[in-house]
């Protein structure tokens, strides 16, 4: 018996290794596609980065193009860029003199990561309990309150929430600061706006999967054994009810990532999102390219990790798809 179980485990590990290997390959391929697509999309732009309303003298343009290595053949530029990306060198910014794209990422990333990380934590720490409460008190007032909040959270765009917070809490009441990110108070507004949608979604998701799990036989068995309600919910139901939430973590990170563009703009937070929006505004192509690839890479790695975690915690998943 024991021997057989061990054998199964070994086979499982082997499969797991294969699965991770396959996913890793897929991830790298996707990254490659992202870089290639971004590169060629940016080079498909008519005009080019030095086209101004008042045309620059041809000599200046030639000098600029030579400086940014733009008169090399396209495939050479492509391979150079590819090489650069894998050593985290995204080239210089076209609009900000003497600033490299990676400098912007380095200065913006910690700020955005702090804000985004807080938002993710808030979503999980508040969203999941709200969903559980709502499922436990199905069709009671607690359930209705959570459902209404969740519906509003899903439908009201983040920028509307953000501007409302600024208007009410910073403008009218004057209790929250409206820009920057220096004290803990500065986090309240942006985090609420940033996590609003995902928070609502996670609580909806937790509620529905909790309701489904609570009808299962093993919950009845657990109750029949005389376990306390706390153990039944916390140990038996929650483990399985949280599986769909884990799959949502990937899209949630994407949502919070892109959401941060607007939120950082509204609250004037010097993060990557703000730089990205700025670069879109003044057509700073290398910054747009660099940040897009950086974001996409980050997101792809997150999805990869979530996939692996999911397989690890859900034994029902078949590894050979």
């Amino acid at each position, binding site marked *: 018996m024991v021997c057989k179980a061990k054998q199964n485990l070994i086979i499982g590990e082997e499969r797991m290794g294969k699965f991770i290997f396959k996913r890793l390959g897929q991830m790298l391929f996707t990254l490659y596609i992202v870089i290639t697509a971004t590169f060629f999309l940016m080079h498909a732009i008519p005009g080019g980065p030095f086209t101004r309303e008042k045309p620059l003298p041809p000599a200046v343009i030639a000098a600029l193009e030579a400086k940014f290595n733009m008169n090399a053949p396209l495939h050479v530029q492509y391979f150079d860029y590819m090489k650069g990306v894998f050593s985290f060198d995204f080239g210089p910014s076209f609009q900000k003199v003497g600033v490299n794209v990676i400098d912007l990422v380095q200065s913006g990333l910690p700020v955005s990561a702090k804000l985004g990380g807080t938002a993710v934590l808030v979503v999980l720490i508040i969203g999941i309990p709200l969903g559980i409460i709502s499922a436990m008190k199905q069709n009671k007032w607690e359930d209705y309150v959570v459902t209404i909040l969740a519906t509003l959270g899903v439908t009201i765009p983040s920028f509307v929430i953000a*501007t409302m917070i600024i208007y009410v809490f910073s403008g009218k009441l004057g209790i929250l600061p409206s820009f920057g990110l220096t004290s803990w108070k500065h986090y309240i507004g942006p985090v609420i706006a940033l996590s609003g949608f995902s928070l609502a979604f996670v609580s909806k998701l937790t509620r529905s999967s909790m309701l489904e799990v609570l009808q299962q036989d093993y919950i009845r068995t657990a109750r029949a054994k005389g376990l306390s309600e706390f153990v039944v919910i916390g140990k038996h139901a929650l483990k399985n009810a949280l599986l769909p939430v884990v799959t949502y973590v990937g899209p949630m990170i994407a949502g919070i990532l892109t959401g941060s563009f607007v939120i950082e703009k509204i609250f004037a937070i010097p993060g990557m999102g703000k730089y990205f929006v700025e670069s879109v505004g003044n057509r700073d192509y290398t910054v747009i390219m660099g940040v897009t690839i950086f974001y996409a890479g980050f997101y792809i790695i997150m999805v990869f990790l979530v996939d692996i975690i999911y397989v690890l915690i859900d034994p029902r998943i078949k590894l050979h798809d």
Partner: protein
Amino acid sequence: MIKGEGMDKRWEKASEEIKGEKKIRPSLTYWQDAWRRLKQNKLSMIGLVVIILLFITAIFGPMVSKFSYEDQDLKFGNIAPRFDIYEVDKSNYIYVHPEYKLFTVTSDGELLDSLRPVKNDMMNSQKIYEVDGKRVVLDYKNAKLAKKNPSIQKYKILVENKETEVTKRVFNKTYFFGTDSHGRDLFIRVLYGARISLTVAIVATLVNFFIGIFYGGISGYLGGRVDAVMTRIMDIISTIPLLLYVILLMVIIAPGLKTIIIAMGITFWVRMARIVRGQTLSIKQHEYVMAAKTIGAKNFRILSRHIIPNAMGPIIVSLTMMIPNAIFTESFLSFIGLGVSAPQASWGTLASDALAGIRTYPYQLFFPSMAISITMLAFNFLGDGLRDALDPRLRK
């Protein structure tokens, strides 16, 4: 025994009574049944009514309004939808703009004209006007103090050297939603924004719909190696944050109405393709598809006549869910400066423009935001109801 009777009845014309009996329980088609279920869901009916009203106002609203979305009157910039008026005498009322400008208004809130100060006394922080022969003084000495202490009134109005209190608060009868900083009527701009936002959302969703049906249908129907490759492509695309690519596309092909539609149309189709593929995979096993094959129907005919129409339920549900997403994406893009360009307006650009003056003119943000939120809510309610009504798995 029944033979004689039965034979007779069979050849007789059916009586009215029998016809009536049949009508008690008419057999319902799939769509009739779905409609019957949808009607029972109050929230989705509210959603449907709101959506219909929205379309009617978006289409006909701009036709009946006296302003156009691009009419601007700098004189009447940033006027609120509801304001305080002061009585000068029985027939003359004035409204004090937050920028210390005076307007003559009627007692029920119709804007007449802006007033030019007769004398601008900067030393005493006073502006002196003449209304119908009466001397009206706007005293803004306290403006600086009011900044520190909000309980102090920013300005005083003196009519013939006598301080006057606010007579009443009225709704703006000329501009229902107020005006923006260029003096454009916000009401008509929100209506016009509805046109743009809804057009973008619906056309982009339709583009997704056609690409999705085409891609998913072929992938699911052909199966085998073609399906494997096509599914792998979908897997790769769905792990890329698509919004970034919408932004990239918009940067490349200068922002505008067409660009938003193109960028959203060619990026967000994967979800639809997945649904269509899943449906096709299960429907192609049905007998009627087999029957069609046996009589030699072409692949295209089987797909377009047999498979797609029968997959319509889940497709429509996801279409209604995609529209609010598209509205949100459009306003999101406009908000970061990639929307339609002025004087055109979508809800997103209106909200974005209002951001600069949020403290003084919050109404400019309120109306477009409400429009976006209500529309998204309505489509969500309708989508939820449609899912319950059209999803066969939920049928009892």
